[in-house]
């Protein structure tokens, strides 16, 4: 190979980066931040009204922010860490090694940021990306509507032109944490006469704007992570449109790929104690030290096989993307499988927990953490595109199956 010396240097640099990163994380990640998040308070979302739930949470966030590692692979000029794909993988591996929590969770990081980097103009990037990286603004996503779920492109929220502004009227549903969000990235219909995919624009505005109201939706989990969001003649400057007016569907689709990749990774893969041991704690073991419920043990082992295989596939997806060999619709494949697997995990956890996993309101059960989390996972295969929509995308875009 002619470039072997170049790749040797690259490997050596990467190993230096790994040892430096490992040392830095050892020195800077507080021990309290090396455990999986078990409640909402353990997750830091940033925003104008952000509060830290603990001192270690604040320290960890600030140290990571100062290195640009809330968004490690974004360019430094926008508040990122400027890491290459290979360095980013090293950082993720090293954080995983010590079980470090993400310092900042944000729809700005997972969804809007990548879309702005690709479709935003320079002013929009300068305005919004650094604030996302620093956790100053908390974003929400205005996509679904009461009559536009899986058929998202049939959305009806209207944006009418009025001088330099659009005036927006309509409603959104399933807007995650809209009641806590500072800004929204929103799909609106700017040309009602065009075909459904062609008259949509992607626009950004402040949730404090006149005419915006939110109403939390109580879910089967007893939590209200989603809202109904209403817009009554909300005035937004036209300069807030990302990409071209009426071409918002391109931005929306691109963003959905990132959303799907994010959701497929939501399961706590490889974190904490093995599922089989969690189950053995409550179910008990037989004379050979094996989980004393052979059918459950088999289900867990099959789950573990599939989970390990999916982890390899997620790693390969990143490597394929890096090598320029990835199919753009592959995130739909991962989203489908990852969410179905996460539902399986929680069915197993409920089965393993037995009576103890039924308690809904008690200190002992951390206010029913497990059954609420179990119910929450049922949304995984609905939000961000249902399993059925994902399979349709794989069938048409990857397998090139005909019609419908």
């Amino acid at each position, binding site marked *: *190979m002619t470039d072997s010396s170049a790749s040797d240097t690259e490997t050596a640099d990467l190993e230096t980066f790994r040892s430096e990163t490992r040392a830095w994380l050892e020195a800077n990640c507080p021990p309290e931040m090396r455990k999986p998040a078990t409640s909402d308070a353990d997750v830091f979302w940033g925003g104008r009204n952000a509060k830290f739930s603990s001192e270690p949470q604040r320290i960890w966030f600030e140290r990571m922010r100062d290195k640009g590692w809330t968004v490690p692979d974004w360019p430094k000029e926008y508040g990122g860490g400027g890491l290459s794909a290979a360095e980013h993988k090293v950082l993720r591996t090293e954080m995983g090694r010590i079980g470090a929590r993400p310092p900042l969770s944000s729809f700005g990081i997972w969804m809007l940021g990548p879309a702005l980097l690709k479709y935003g103009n320079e002013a929009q990037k300068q305005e919004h990306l650094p604030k996302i990286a620093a956790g100053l603004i908390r974003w929400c996503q205005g996509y679904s509507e009461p009559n536009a779920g899986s058929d998202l492109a049939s959305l009806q929220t209207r944006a009418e032109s009025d001088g330099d502004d659009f005036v927006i009227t309509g409603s959104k549903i399933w807007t995650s944490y809209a009641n806590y969000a500072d800004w929204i990235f929103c799909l609106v219909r700017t040309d009602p006469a065009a075909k459904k995919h062609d008259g949509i624009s992607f626009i950004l505005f402040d949730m404090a704007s006149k005419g915006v109201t939110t109403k939390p939706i109580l879910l089967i989990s007893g939590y209200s992570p989603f809202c109904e969001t209403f817009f009554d003649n909300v005035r937004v400057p036209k300069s807030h449109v990302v990409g071209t007016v009426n071409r918002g569907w391109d931005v929306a689709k691109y963003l959905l790929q990132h959303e799907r990749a994010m959701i497929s990774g939501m399961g706590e893969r490889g974190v904490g104690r*093995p599922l*089989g*041991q969690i*189950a*053995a704690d409550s179910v008990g*073991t037989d004379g050979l*030290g*094996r*989980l004393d419920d052979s059918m459950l*043990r*088999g289900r*867990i*082992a*099959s789950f*573990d*096989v*599939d989970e*390990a*295989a*999916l982890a*390899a*596939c997620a*790693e*390969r997806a990143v*490597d*394929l993307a*890096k*090598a320029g*060999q990835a199919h753009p619709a*592959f995130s739909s*494949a991962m989203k*489908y*499988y990852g969410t179905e697997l996460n539902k399986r995990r929680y069915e197993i956890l409920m089965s393993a927990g037995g009576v103890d996993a039924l308690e809904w309101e008690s200190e002992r059960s951390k206010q029913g953490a497990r059954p609420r989390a179990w119910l929450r996972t049922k949304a995984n295969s609905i939000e961000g595109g249902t399993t*059925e929509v*994902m*399979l*349709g995308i*794989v*069938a*048409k875009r*990857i*397998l*090139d*199956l*005909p*019609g*419908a």
Partner: protein
Amino acid sequence: MALVLTEEQSMLRDSARGLISDKAPVAHLRHLRDSKDPTGFSKEFWHSFAEMGFAGLLVPEEFGGSGLGHVEAGVVMEEIGRTLMPSPFLATSVVAASALNRGGNAAQKSEYLPKISNGSLLAALAIDEGAKHRPLQTSLQAVRAGNGFKLSGAKALVVDGHVADLLIVAARTAGSAGEREGLTLFLVNSKAKGVAIERTIMVDAHNAARIALANVEVDADSVLGEVDQGAGLLDGVLDIGRGAVASEMVGLSEEVFNRTVEYLKSRKQFGKLIGEFQALQHRAAELYVDIEITRAAVMKALQALDTDVAKAASAVAVAKARAGTTATRAVQEGVQMHGGMGMTDQFDIGFFMKRARVCEELFGDANYHTEQLARARGY
């Protein structure tokens, strides 16, 4: 290590694919089966394989081999899986070569490895005794006699056992069935007195034998590795074989899947291409995802074997378990979606179903490997 093929590995795949699809398409297997070919594979083609450097792919260069790794062996196995070519590659070049290379002393290596590399020696591992793969249940007895041992017992599913010059036989020199201690591997000449070989024609028309040993005398030099301590060597060799069979199953699954998707795009019923029906689209999409995930798991296992065979066990268990369930699903959906055509012998798809069934049993089925993972994780 990135989980994608390197440029060299892609080139190897292309040349293996070109050679195999040209000289040994599924029709080749069909011909061997229908003509009741006594060898069960093409000796001529095996020599071309050796000339390409494939026979000695895993053999170190000092013994005339190519000195490549398990990812490369997997690349070749995958191409074998696409056309179902019967080939000594698995038994001789992967399993036996690894056993000799990992367990052999200097004399054993220099005697056998060069002959494997040049294609002149065929070898077979004799391990299974019961209906299912249970290496520790080995009960074939080896008792000390003079300077050597006498071997007695029976083996089943000895891949290429009917053509092998050299048998690598797992035997019990101490302890009893089920114990790790007391296993020993022996190199046995297949022509030795007391060796009875019965070729077993199996469902997949590939090659295997049942072998009975009756007081077969071997000298002390024919022990491969350490007496009584063969389990560790065997674990590694079997894991290498499992990784290779898992690769074959990935190739097989993908080929069956591609043929099935093409059929969905060409077969019309109710005035429509059947690929337009959502019931079939979703099943095809699920299968595609299953195959992609399994491919990644298998690649992960092969890389783990290249890094350290002794630490690859869990990755290999995941790979072989996934490959088994995925291939089973792929061939079942393949036959079902081909409808009545899938049931005919004239159509190739049934060959894939038959081979998948054998690969599933070979070196442990999905249940066996899922169980191994559960034990490794301590529950």
